């Protein structure tokens, strides 16, 4: 069926490289005329290939959302990218104007946010909202637009889409609303979808259905996914790679199995120990204290005041990225020298 526009599959580029390559990204918030600087994202690097899912994990205020907003260029006015690059399909997004970014957002990069009621307009029908990306980006009109919307709603398992698309968001359940947001995200045939805690407001069985749906869609379209979450269970279920953020920095990143089997950074270990496991009554590991204030970070490694394994060096000197043999990268003095890969040492750029 030719609908006069690209179908669900992303427009795959012939370029082999990664879909997204973030290197040394730094986003700072400036207040009081620039006298106060908060380093919300501090030298964050990761890569993402077609069909891969990256879990971006961290507690509230660790910079997960700011990282995502930096990628799509939707930062609030007080924030600015001060360093690094975001290379998406070979183009550096940090060098693009808002006008150019508008042609990328909604078409090649889409976002799914936490609260579906807040991302849908209560005054417009489902049809109007799902049709918008296809209307603007692919210039579909009339019948082909209607067919495209029905196709998208069917893809996210909305029953009888020809009726449902005439309804309003308040007539849908929470799970259905979130699936409609998913349909809008897919409307442009994106090659990257950023999902920021999309299932936090959903019930467990609905959450499981939604995660299964996202996996199915990814299998069909090969879209790359960034999953922002604080739930390690979702990471275990969904992701191929994980990046753990703490106080604006990526403290550990690597393949999901290595992270769960052999977490390198004490913070990652603590996070894994803090999650209750079904059928186990062992006391949970609890990290003392709470995440630091980004405006007033401790010297050295930001985690050292809470770290059970801190050594004197952690207080004075900030660790850089250490590339380890199993493909993980950790920012911790404790892993220095432990089967480190090649010549990458200390504060390396990757």
């Amino acid at each position, binding site marked *: 069926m030719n609908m006069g526009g690209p179908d669900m599959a992303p427009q795959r580029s012939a370029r082999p490289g990664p879909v997204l390559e973030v290197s040394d990204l730094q986003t700072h918030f400036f207040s009081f005329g620039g006298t106060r600087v908060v380093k919300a994202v501090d030298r964050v690097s990761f890569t993402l290939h077609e069909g891969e899912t990256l879990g971006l994990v961290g507690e509230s205020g660790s910079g997960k959302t700011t990282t995502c907003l930096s990628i799509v260029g939707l930062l609030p006015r007080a924030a600015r990218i001060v360093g690094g690059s975001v290379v998406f399909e070979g183009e550096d997004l940090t060098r693009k104007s808002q006008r150019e970014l508008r042609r990328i957002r909604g078409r090649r990069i889409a976002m799914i946010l936490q609260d579906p009621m807040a991302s849908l307009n209560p005054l417009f029908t489902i049809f109007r909202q799902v049709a918008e990306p296809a209307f603007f980006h692919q210039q579909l009109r009339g019948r082909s637009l209607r067919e495209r919307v029905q196709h998208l709603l069917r893809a996210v398992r909305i029953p009888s889409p020809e009726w449902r698309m005439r309804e309003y968001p308040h007539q849908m359940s929470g799970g259905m609303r979130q699936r409609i947001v998913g349909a809008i995200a897919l409307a442009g045939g994106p090659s990257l979808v950023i999902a920021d805690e999309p299932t936090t407001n959903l019930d*467990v069985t609905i959450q499981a259905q939604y995660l*299964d749906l996202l996996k199915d869609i990814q299998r069909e379209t090969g879209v790359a996914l960034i999953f922002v979450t604080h739930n390690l269970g979702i990471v*275990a279920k969904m992701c191929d790679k994980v990046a753990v953020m703490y106080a604006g920095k990526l403290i550990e990143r690597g393949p999901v*199995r290595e992270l*769960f089997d052999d977490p390198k950074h004490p913070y990652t270990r603590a*996070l894994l120990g803090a*999650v209750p*496991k079904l059928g*186990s009554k062992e006391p949970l590991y*609890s990290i003392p204290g709470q995440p630091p204030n980004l405006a007033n970070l401790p010297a050295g490694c930001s985690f050292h005041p809470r770290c059970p394994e801190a050594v004197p060096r952690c207080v004075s000197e900030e660790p850089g990225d250490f590339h380890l043999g199993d493909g993980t990268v950790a920012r911790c003095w404790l892993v220095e020298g432990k089967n480190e890969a090649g010549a990458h040492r200390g504060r390396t750029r990757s």
Partner: protein
Amino acid sequence: MAEPVLEVRGLKKHFPVRHGLLGRGRTWVKAVDGVDFAIHPGETLGLIGESGCGKTTTSKLILLQETPTAGSIAFEGRDIAGLEGTELMAYRRAVQVVFQDPFSSLSPRMRVEDIIAEPLEIHTDLSRAAIGNRVGEVLELVGLQPDVAPLFPHEFSGGQRQRIAIARALATNTRLIVLDEPVSALDVSVRAQIINQLEHLQRSLGVSYLFIGHDLATVAHISHRIAVMYLGKIVESADSDTLCARPMHPYTKALFAAALPSHPDDQQQERTIAGEVPSALRLPSGCRFHPRCPSAMPVCSEVEPTLQPRDVGGVVACHLYG
């Protein structure tokens, strides 16, 4: 076994819903429809289910914020429906609550010491100095420094606020605390702190908990027994360990299937169940779960199953085990 702290029998709460022109039509939402359970001293009962299944209505009935349509709630052997005067005060003193969101459950205009002192001022005739001492005492119990008392709630993080809410609930020598999703709004590491703290407090003070939640792993971790609710009814209830080892009701199994793995290699055999919780206004006939049930039989849409003993302990309401 000792006498239960709280015993709930045949508890029902039906809300009228008016509809049609001038509100002449009338139907009932059966939010809680015949629930039985007991909580013993020093025990945690976990109440689990999806939104709209009647967990919070049950807690409101226990807290006397709603009056039951039918059934009884007995606290230490006495029916709470007829309580008046000092006896009612004694009940309110003994049963406290901690809510999900510590950002909206603490008044932003009150200092921490006033928040915690309020139940003491209402329920006891202690002097100001004695109240001050007690405030410091409960703050220490929940792992906060007594010198935070003069601060306002906005000066605390989510986890600390939840500790303040727990301190307030403990202030009056409480016997039972209703914990309505107390950790859902917290970050992972803070969640673990609060769960450990609650378990520690139970061991040292012997207080009982009714722990309401929807995250199976958390509820199973903290609870001694678990009751699974679906559309106003308890469909299965058993010791936490036996329930985890062998869930029997298809809905309980579905909750386990939907629970997130703790490791990427934890393969999930079953596909999750389809559909959503139906509206409580139009309850399915027979077993309330049959429209979503993967193993529904013809009898399920006709006859409502009753709770029967499970062969390994506990009870289950399902025709599969009739």
